[in-house]
């Protein structure tokens, strides 16, 4: 299926440019992917892409919508976490997460924006709350909406948020590591052009390698997804940061049965 050029290398409008440049240094908090794991040689990429269905897109159960707030990095972070939960524990245990419960801790206002590394630090240590919906209200003690910076977090939120943590990440140095991580089953949460999203698959389009990402603009693009080419992303990796989450905690002990 041909990719609509309208959804390739889309920069956000100025009012939504809210992914801030990283405030730490590459490898300061997490192992560097290329060093710890290594990269898949480029001559193997065509064969991997050719296999139909080699994509993590089915792990994305719902496209997020940040509304008019500058919470793209928190949406990308919690969206990537959701996809890992689906990967580890199955779609039957998917829990929609509240990006705002993260954003409120890493931003100073609805439009201030946030860095990728601040979001990772928070979701790794204190976690993220489930989104406020009927199902989650019935299951969890604390929930929070996905938008609305002015709304306070529920009292005692830490108790529930700590159940939803992404505990292991890789810091990605370059495009070769970025693509390799996706081929090896890790979504990549990254920033470019003042906007943060997370990539779920690799494509080759217009003579160039590209990634398909889940956006947080609701009904937008190709069912909520867009594409970034290598040339569009390359320079942004080190300025904004690109990270590959790989382990999430089990929010319920019964997600993992005990051996007999």
């Amino acid at each position, binding site marked *: 299926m041909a990719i609509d050029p309208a959804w390739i290398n889309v920069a956000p409008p100025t009012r939504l440019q809210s992914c801030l440049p990283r405030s730490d240094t590459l490898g300061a908090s997490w192992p560097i992917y290329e060093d*710890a*794991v290594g990269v*898949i040689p480029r001559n*193997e990429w065509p064969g*991997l892409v050719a*296999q139909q*269905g*080699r*994509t*993590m897109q*089915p*792990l994305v159960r719902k496209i997020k919508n940040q509304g008019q707030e500058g919470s793209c990095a928190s949406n990308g972070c919690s969206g990537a976490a959701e996809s890992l939960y*689906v*990967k*580890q*524990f*199955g*779609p*039957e245990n998917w829990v929609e997460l509240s990006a705002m419960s993260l954003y409120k801790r890493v931003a100073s206002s609805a439009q201030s924006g946030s860095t990728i590394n601040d979001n990772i630090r928070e979701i790794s240590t204190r976690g993220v709350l489930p989104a406020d919906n009927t199902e989650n209200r019935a299951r969890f003690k604390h929930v929070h909406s996905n938008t609305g910076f002015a709304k306070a977090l529920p009292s005692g939120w830490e108790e529930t948020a700590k159940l939803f943590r992404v*505990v*292991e990440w890789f810091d990605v140095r370059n495009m070769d590591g970025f693509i390799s991580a996706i*081929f*090896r*089953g*890790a979504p990549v949460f990254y920033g470019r052009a003042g906007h943060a999203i997370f990539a779920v698959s690799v494509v080759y389009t217009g003579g160039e390698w590209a990634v398909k990402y889940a956006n947080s603009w609701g009904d937008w693009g190709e069912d909520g997804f867009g594409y970034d080419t290598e040339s569009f992303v390359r320079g942004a990796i080190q300025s904004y940061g690109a990270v590959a989450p*790989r*382990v999430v*905690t*089990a929010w319920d*002990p*019964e*997600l*993992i*049965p*005990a*051996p*007999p």
Partner: protein
Amino acid sequence: MSRASLLSAALLLCAVCAAADPQQIVITGPAKVSTNGYAFFSVVGLASDDLQKTQVSCTGVGADGKTIPSDTTTCIPFTGWGGGHTLFFVAQSSGRYTIAITVNGWRGSLDRAVDDAVSAGIDAELLGQLQSVQARAAQSYPYRNGSTTLEVVGANPPPPPPPPPPPPETGQRWLILVRESQDDSASLAWQIMQLRQSEYLISKGHLFRVLDDDLPSAEPWLAELSGVSGPGLVIAERLVSSAGQVLWKGPIPKTYNETIELLKRHGG
């Protein structure tokens, strides 16, 4: 059996008693033989027609003090060309063996007759007379018997293979993959995605979990997979809220199709 015929039988047996040969039986042969090696023993003291009223036993005790199963030993007496008696012996297991020969002849017939009379519930007076005859016969004409021992040395045969496990009942299964996520290859990542979306797993009610070995909650399954290097898979019964019997564990097969075939072979 009537009272008259019982007494007649007893008197007849007593008449045979007088002609009985009290000679004991002597068994001679090698003191040591290797496992599965043949041994022949000379048996002296048997009359020409004694073989049909002879009991032979070969009992062995292994180095562990346990009785060796009788079906691993063969012990057969036979009459040779010259009319002498020989005993053929072979054993599969090492240990110390005792070969015993007992000729019960008419004494055996008498003992069986008394046993039959007891079972038949004949009158006490006649039974008493029979038992008295039996006791006198036992005192005057003990069974003729003889025994010898030998050592069987050498390697024991490999234990018989365990019986094949019963085919598993079909039912819902857990598939639990435990691995270091840092080591995920592109092919494993692809298989995980295929299993995650598998219509087959969904239609059968099987559940699939993907665990990093660093997760505390993965520890029990990591222990279950001890000795398995690389990504390990456990197939277990899926009970209502827990895992039942582990049906298979080992390295995850290389492809999705191989994993599904493995699952099917274990009732899934």
